[in-house]
């Protein structure tokens, strides 16, 4: 008994897959933006002079990295309302993915910070920049350039992780694919097309990040 491919039903619902892809990208971008902020904060704290700052940053990374994303998403979605914090499913997913990506980005940024030569930081202090100004104008840009390649990896992972949003019924690509699958019973075609879309999107993100790497001068 053979399985013959019929993509017609999939193409009929292709716009739903595309809108799902757009939602996934939107979720990932929002989460990564917040996560980048969290990661920068925690990374600077983890190499900073404050013992409390290092402790908080270290605990944050340890907690989040030891939780599966799905569990974190469900925790935020179901537990926060009990604590009186009402978020819709989009907000709670973006929050969960932001927390999650923040922990990974902390490690990426921390490695980047450790790669900034001490003498370059001292040169910033020597011309009279304050500690904060040195962080903004010297340490952060040098660190970001050094971190760019691993930053790209993390961004791509976060985009793929947006598929977890299907678990709380956000109509992103995986959720839509599952619905089309159930509606049409074209199992192989549905997931082939969905996979193709993920691969294409990730390839586009990777190319964009690589062009950024080329644009900024190598040190």
């Amino acid at each position: 008994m053979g399985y013959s491919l019929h993509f017609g039903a999939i193409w009929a619902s292709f716009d739903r897959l595309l809108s799902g892809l757009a939602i996934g990208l939107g979720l990932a971008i929002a989460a990564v933006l917040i996560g980048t902020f969290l990661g920068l904060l925690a990374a600077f704290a983890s190499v900073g002079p404050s013992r409390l700052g290092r402790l908080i940053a270290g605990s944050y990374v340890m907690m989040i990295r030891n939780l599966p994303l799905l569990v974190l998403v469900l925790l935020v979605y179901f537990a926060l309302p009990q604590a009186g914090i009402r978020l819709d499913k989009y907000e709670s997913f973006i929050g969960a993915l932001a927390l999650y990506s923040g922990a990974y980005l902390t490690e990426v940024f921390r490695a980047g910070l450790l790669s900034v030569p001490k003498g370059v930081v001292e040169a910033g202090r020597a011309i009279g920049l304050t500690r904060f100004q040195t962080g903004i104008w010297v340490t952060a840009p040098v660190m970001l350039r050094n971190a760019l390649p691993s930053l790209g990896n993390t961004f791509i992972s976060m985009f793929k992780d947006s598929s977890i949003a299907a678990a709380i019924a956000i109509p992103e690509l995986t959720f839509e694919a599952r619905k089309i699958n159930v509606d049409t019973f074209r199992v192989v075609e549905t997931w082939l097309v969905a996979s193709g879309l993920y691969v294409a999107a990730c390839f586009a993100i990777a190319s964009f990040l690589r062009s950024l790497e080329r644009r900024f001068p190598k040190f």
Partner: protein
Amino acid sequence: MTETLHPLLEIRGLRKQFGTVEVLKGVDLALNKREVVSIIGSSGSGKTTLLRCVNLLEEFQGGDIVLDGETIGYRISKGRRYRIRDRDLSRQRSMTGMVFQSFNLFPHLTAAGNVMLGLRKVRRLGRDEARAIAEAWLGRVGLAQRGDHYPSQLSGGQQQRVAIARALAMDPKLVLLDEVTSALDPELVQEVLNTVKSIADDGATLLIVTHEMRFARDVSNRVVFMEQGQIVEDGPPAEIFGNPRSQRLAEFLRNTRT
């Protein structure tokens, strides 16, 4: 006459420890405005640490550093010394310029950007004014055509000259030079020394740590010999190099003669 009464820099009884190791054991040194003083001595004698204390990159445990009448780095309250706030440290640091052994240019900024950063963020000048000053200083160190180059596109000697421009553009009262030619290929040393010489000739006040004995002799008004965290001799170059009084300096000079 008044200038000799009030030295630009006065270091009194400076003591510095790294853990239990005492690297500066009570250093006294004074510099007048427009004076060029070179510190010589073997590695580990505390020369570089002394410079870093003056620029407040290192904390120190005893003594005072007075720059242009202002005690820097610490304040005394109820008989105890306290390190001052970061903001005040930064302001005092901007009064001295520092040129490092390994250049330490900001790798993400062009040569002009390196010179401009302090002008923009510390002296708070507008972009155009900062650029004009940066270009003038790059021209002064012979790099007028290199403003748009990144440090990685410059030779070691060129990078060090950008670093000199970066320090001097801030219009510091005192410039500290920490073995500025030690990381350079031999054929690039002279261009940097020439730049330093011309800055000295223009009347800058320089405190130089160097291993280039000939240069120290040519450029300095005074040469200071340090050993084991103390100043052993302090005098005009002709005397230090021609007629060392201590056994230790005589030995040091014998060993460094090439």
